């Protein structure tokens, strides 16, 4: 049986240990009845996060990356963006090219193994690292240990904020009704479902209207959408119909690939729905031009 060296756990670099509550008052005649007041200390203080930007965010929508940085920094984290990162390897992995997927994955592992956590503003790329990387190294125990170590500390952004840092609310405002699409990998590989909704519920002015079948795929599927464009389009027609039926003026999701797919279709059909990444709205960046919309100079 293969043994990986135990993970040392996150180093509390500044000597700060998690709060253990208020000291018990010896002079009180009754035990305290109310819960300890929540600490004002930001939950991410002392944590250094490696941000995996994703190739689509890097190329098409840097604002998603900056929104992620803001949300993480607001929670007290220090954010580092290693410049040796490129892509997570999914295009090769899902095309059956295991060899190239391994080579790219090995680079990601090397770039990110030194951080307390790795955070990804995408369930798809996050799922690739957290869920699929270890399986790529079935025949290489050393690499598999390293892959497992990185996989174990890699999180999709919403899941990291809520599940790991216990962030309950954000200071943001967004006027209007929004509907939220559950991107497949985040939902089914990483359990991202309640977290974005919980954070969106704290945004002033925002009203969430659920679409029918928010968990059904939008038809993107990476290379699928260009290898089988007709099937992809049929799936997209169902999805945009469900979006349209909500009457919401904004569509949100946590994966740029799905967002570009849905935005492209809504715009081709002349539907006036603005499409944004959830992180942008949570970071108070809901006023920038939506995906596929012209930017005012």
């Amino acid at each position, binding site marked *: 049986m293969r043994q990986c060296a135990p993970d040392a756990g996150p180093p509390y670099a500044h000597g700060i240990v998690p709060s253990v509550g208020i000291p018990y008052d010896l002079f009180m005649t009754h035990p305290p009845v109310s819960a300890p007041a929540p600490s004002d200390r930001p939950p991410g203080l002392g944590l250094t996060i490696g941000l995996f930007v994703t190739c689509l965010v890097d190329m098409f929508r840097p604002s998603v990356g900056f929104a992620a940085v803001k949300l993480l920094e607001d929670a007290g984290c220090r954010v580092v963006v290693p410049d*040796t990162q490129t*892509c997570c390897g999914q*295009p090769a992995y899902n095309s059956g090219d295991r060899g190239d997927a391994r080579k790219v994955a090995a680079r990601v592992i090397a770039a990110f193994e030194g951080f307390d956590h790795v955070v990804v503003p995408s369930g798809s790329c996050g799922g690739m690292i957290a869920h699929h990387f270890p399986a790529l190294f079935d025949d290489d125990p050393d690499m598999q240990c390293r892959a497992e170590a990185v996989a174990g500390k890699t999180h999709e952004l919403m899941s990291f904020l809520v599940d790991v840092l216990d962030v309950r609310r954000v200071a943001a405002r967004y006027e209007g009704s929004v509907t939220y699409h559950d991107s497949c990998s985040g939902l089914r590989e990483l359990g991202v479902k309640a977290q974005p909704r919980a954070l969106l519920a704290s945004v002033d002015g925002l009203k969430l209207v659920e679409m029918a079948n928010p968990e059904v795929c939008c038809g993107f599927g990476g290379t699928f959408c260009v290898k089988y464009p007709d099937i992809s389009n049929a799936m997209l027609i169902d999805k945009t119909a469900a979006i349209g039926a909500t009457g919401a003026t904004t569509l949100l999701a946590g994966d740029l690939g799905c967002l570009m797919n849905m935005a492209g279709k809504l715009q081709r059909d002349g539907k006036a729905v603005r499409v944004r990444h959830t992180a942008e709205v949570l970071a108070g960046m809901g006023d920038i031009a939506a995906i596929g919309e012209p930017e005012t100079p």
Partner: protein
Amino acid sequence: MQSTAHAFKDNVEHALVDGNLQQSLALLKVGFSERRRQAVERLPEFEALRDRARDIKNHALAHLDFYLEAFETKVTAHGGHVHWAPTAADARGIILDICREAGARTVTKSKSMIAEEIALNEHLEANGIEPVETDLGEYIIQLRREPPSHIIAPAVHLTKDQVADTFLEHHRKLGFDKRLTERSDLVAEARQVLRRRFQEADVGITGANFLVAETGSSMLVTNEGNADLGNTLPRVHIVIASIEKVIPTLEDAATLLRVLARSATGQESSSYTTFNTGPKRPGDPDGPAQYHVVLLDNGRSGVLGTQMQDMLRCIRCGACMNHCPVYGAIGGHAYGWVYPGPIGAVLTPQLIGVEEAGNLPNASTFCGRCESVCPVRIPLPKLMRHWREREFERHLTPASIRQGLALWAFLARRPALYRRLTGIANRTLALFGRAAGRYAWLPLAGGWTRYRDFPAPQRGGTFHAQWRARGGARR
């Protein structure tokens, strides 16, 4: 049946413009999944049952030889006969011989995917024996000379009007000359026609949902009771089943039944659950004089012990296709052979070759909805990915995709070069797309822009360029 899996893309094109099919699929997409959801909600231990069901099948597969021989021993002890069929041709031959021995002119059949897999009807017809399908859906498509489009709802691709036309065309000669419009009337007419066929059949052929090693029973569920007439009225009953259907005990059958119907149709249990254990015994009021079980391998034993073994857990509930957005878009016939949907995408390349069926495991977004509802937790996307790997290894992946991947992989491992090229692409796309915010057409992106606009990048450069410019931490 003759495979058209190689022509998958053409099949898809036809399916997407078939108005009747699309009308039927619109109902299927919401109906089955909603009923399953409600059934699961009513059973708090459902997820634990899925684990148990998976474990039972894994155990049976790990000791398949033992349980198959135990099953055979029990069947023989009850006076039945077990026939081992390594290939589809062997199974067809064995069944034809039994039918000839019985002097059969007509046989009634209850729904069996294995019979489809071995093309049994065609073989019987070619040898002068008339097979009569008795499951309503199978009966309809037999009249229309079509293959099933779904493993539990074979005629799900048809509308009520199409069925009405088919019945009028074929039943007129039997004296039914009124075109019916009510579902209940269509069912009643089929019952009248089929009742006579049941009575005159010499042999009844059924499939099996499970084979119980402990008792030598074959177990079958239906909602129409047709299998029960088919296995009690004729003199000879033949069960055709593949080897991975065997499970250890009746207790296991009970567990699997609890997930089967809920996953398939959202029912607590199917209307009829029948255990057949040998021929009629002295003193039994009815039952067949002869009882045969034909066990088909057809390549399955070769899957044991490989990375594909999980596919053999399948209990044929159809939940994967009911929840598959690709199946929901194109229906079952587009897959081109017997088994459609996600399970078809992993089973078909195994049974008829990945050269023929290579498109099937590729035509998936890996959305994972199939795996999330599978009652025996088959990792269907993982198995589809394994097929893609085998295609890639054998150079069956199209050259354009291989070249694109090679270029991408080259760049993805050279961050500096990658940054320079993505920077150029980003600036170019942003420059020309800025005014509109998107592209209606882009060179080399026809697959995308045929149906959707392509969003232009935000101005200001790539994320990494901006991060570097503002002095963000990079290590």
